C-alpha cells in the first residue's frame, strides 16, 4: 500500500522528514495559534477594541466602499483577528489532519468550494436580516417597546 504524503507546510517553508513529524509540527502550530487567541481574549488590548476606519459617507461610492471594506468598517479588529485565526486553524486541521493535502484537486474543490459558497451565502442572508431586525426593534423610531 502506497500512502504518499506531502511533507511540507507553509508552501515549503517548513519541511518534515516523516508524516509523524509533520503531525507534531502542525500540532505545535495549532497550539501556538490557540495560545494567541486565548491571550488576546483575556487581555483584549484597547487598540483592537475599536474599529480603525469610520464608515465612509457621501453617496453611492461611499456605500460601495463600505461594503467592500465592511470587515474593517463594521468589525472590531480583535474579532477580525479571531475569525481569521479560526480559518487558519480550520485550514491546517483539514489539510494535514484530514489529509486533504494528499487528495486530488477535484475532491478538494468538491468539498471546499461547495461548503464555502453555501456557508457564505447563508451567513450573509442571516446577518443582514439580523441587522435589519435590530433596526426595527431598537433604534429611536422603533415601533416596538422592549425595555419595560
Amino acid at each position, binding site marked *: 500500500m502506497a500512502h504518499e504524503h506531502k511533507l511540507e507546510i507553509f508552501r515549503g517553508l517548513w519541511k518534515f522528514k516523516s508524516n509523524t513529524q509533520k503531525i507534531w509540527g502542525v500540532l505545535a502550530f495549532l497550539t501556538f495559534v490557540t495560545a494567541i487567541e486565548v491571550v488576546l481574549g483575556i487581555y483584549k488590548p484597547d487598540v483592537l477594541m475599536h474599529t480603525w476606519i469610520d464608515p465612509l459617507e457621501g453617496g453611492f461610492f461611499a456605500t460601495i466602499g463600505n461594503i467592500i471594506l465592511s470587515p474593517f468598517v463594521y468589525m472590531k479588529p480583535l474579532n477580525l483577528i479571531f475569525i481569521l485565526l479560526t480559518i487558519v486553524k480550520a485550514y491546517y486541521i483539514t489539510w494535514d489532519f484530514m489529509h486533504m493535502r494528499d487528495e486530488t484537486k477535484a475532491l478538494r474543490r468538491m468539498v471546499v468550494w461547495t461548503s464555502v459558497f453555501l456557508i457564505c451565502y447563508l*451567513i450573509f442572508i442571516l446577518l443582514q436580516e439580523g441587522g435589519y431586525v435590530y433596526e426595527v426593534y431598537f433604534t429611536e423610531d422603533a415601533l416596538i417597546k422592549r425595555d419595560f
Partner: protein
Amino acid sequence: MDSTVASTGTEGKTWGGGNKPLVASYGKMMMWFFIVSDALTFSGFLAAYGFSRFKFIKEWPIADEVFTHVPFLHGQELPMIYVAFMTFVLIMSSVTMVLAVDAGHHMNKVKVTLYMFLTIIGGAIFVGSQAWEWATFIQGDYGAVQTKGGNILQFGEYVTVDGEDKFKRISIDDFAVHHSTERTQHQRKNGLWFVTEDPLPPYSVNEIYEGLAANSNILVRTQEINDEGHKTVLSREESLKWVKNNGQLVVKGANLKVNEYGTALFADFFFFITGFHGFHVFSGVVINIIIFFNVILGTYERRGSYEMVEKVGLYWHFVDLVWVFVFTFFYLV
C-alpha cells in the same frame, strides 16, 4: 442475470468507468459527503446564532463574564482558561487520531491500538468537561431580576481596585431579605393531580427590593452595552425604581426559558449548539470504541487495510474542526 448486462467491451477505458478522477475509495468519499452536509448543518446553527446576536447586538451577554469558572478553583474569576484547556484536549485527541491513522498505514497494530485508546480518553475528557461547563452555567452564580419586558437586571457595587473604579457583582443571596415564603410550590401530591409547577425562584422580587433598599451601596446593572463596551450601571434612584416598577421574576442560573446573564436566546443557542456538538463528540467516542475493539480483534489486520480507522478519523477531525468555530463564536468574538 447475464442476459440483462450488455458487455460493451469498453471496461477499463475512460467511458467504461476506467477513469477514477477522485482516486478515493467509496467509503472515504461518502464520509467526505457526510462531512460536507454536517458542516452545513452546523453552519446553519451558527448563522442562526449570528442572526440572534445581531438582533440583540447592544445587549448580548459578554462571554468573559459568563464562563469564568475552572474546576477546583472555586470563587476565582478566570475567563477563557478552562475552555482553552478543552480546546487543547480536543486538538490533542485529533493528533493521536491522526497518529493512529499513520500507524495503520504502516500496519502497526500495537501503535494503532495505543493511539486509538488515547483518542478515546481525550474525547471522554472533553465530553466530561462540557458536562461540567453546562452544570456550572445552569447553576448560575450571582442571580438577577427579570423585568416585565424579559430583560435582566443584575446587582453589584463600585469598588476601587488599583485606583480604578470597578463594578463588582454581588450575589442576590448576600443582600436579599428572606421572609418566610409567601407561597409553596404546587405539587401533584398536595394540589390538583393533573397540574404541576416548576420549582419556585429562591426569592420574590419584593425580598430583593427590600434588600436593595436596605443596602445603599448596591446598584443595578442593565443588559444594555454602552459605548465603552460595558453594561450600563444605573444610578441609585433609578436602580430602586426599576426593580420596584418593572421587576417580575427572580432568576438564578440559566435554562431554556430564563438566563441570569442576559438574553434568554444566549442560553438557548449555547445549549443547542454545544449540545449538538457534544452529541457528535459522544457518538464519535462510541464509534472510536467500536473501531478500537475491531483493531484489538485483528479485523483490519486480516482485511489487510486499516482504512476504517482513516474513515472514523475523518469524522473525529471534523468534530474538532467544528469545535474550533464554536470556540470562536461563543467564547472569543
